[in-house]
């Protein structure tokens, strides 16, 4: 799938749900090799579900947070070739921004809580 252009992406304020943030967090642990859907489910420790992970990944790919490619078919492994996902540059930036925003929000909440 063709991700949206940078201009289109910059026009919109990036949104990142908790599940998407979790996926990005997991994918950032393996930035070079990438991970496939079931691997993400196994690594997440039941925070991601088999039925929803592909939909989430598809949505994230549409947003341009992740890139996907099919692994090369091997003669020793039968069946369809798996689809591997990795974080795109835009996804990394969005994730960092989101983390910073969350940290700032937490600090502000703490300050407000302390002042009260």
């Amino acid at each position: 799938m063709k991700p949206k252009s940078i201009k289109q992406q910059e026009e919109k304020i990036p949104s990142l749900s908790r599940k998407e943030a979790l996926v990005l967090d997991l994918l950032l642990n393996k930035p070079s090799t990438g991970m496939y859907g079931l691997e993400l489910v196994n690594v997440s420790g039941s925070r991601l579900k088999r039925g929803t992970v592909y939909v989430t990944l598809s949505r994230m790919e549409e947003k341009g947070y992740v890139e996907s490619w099919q692994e090369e078919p091997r003669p020793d492994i039968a069946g369809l070739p798996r689809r591997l996902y990795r974080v795109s540059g835009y996804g990394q930036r969005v994730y960092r921004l989101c983390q910073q925003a969350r940290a700032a929000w937490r600090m502000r909440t703490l300050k407000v809580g302390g002042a009260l």
Partner: protein
Amino acid sequence: MKGGFKTKKRSEEWSSISGRGAKGTPLTEFRLYRNDTMWTVEDTANRNRHLKLWKGREPHQQSADFIKLAGTIRERQRSVFERVRGTVIRFLLAVMLVDLIRTMYQNKDRISRPPGSTLFAIADFFCSKKTVGEVVTPLIADMQFEYNEALAGRRKHKAKWIRVRGCWSFFKALGMHSILKTFVEMWRKISSV
């Protein structure tokens, strides 16, 4: 007993078979075994005389004094070697039978389609190319990979369970995907107005 002969009291072993002269009742017949065949005569008082007479006679004349009871051929006691051999043969036959049954079931292997091919066909018919490419294909590919891994590890039940779970996640993913798409489309239409 081969060739020889032996006398037995009816009340000891045969009362339950003949139905007459149960234990404690006076014996009324005399039995003699020769070549594993039971011969009987209704005269216990003169058993020694009968035996002597019977011994002295020619084999073809012996049946004249004693009545051969049909269907009462007594199986001689087998030696330890024969018993062990019989047990071993029975055991080997049982093993062969079990192996045969197992082979019959194992030979049921046939060329079959990979798991998820029907699901793929259903999705291909009902869903858009985009949905098939982004959701269905990776889901089925992962399921097939996991299934093959389980089969390679000789875990048949696990493989079956993966199949069931894959089927369930397929419907869940498609259902959720369709619902999500509907909501997104609705939101786009509302926001564009």
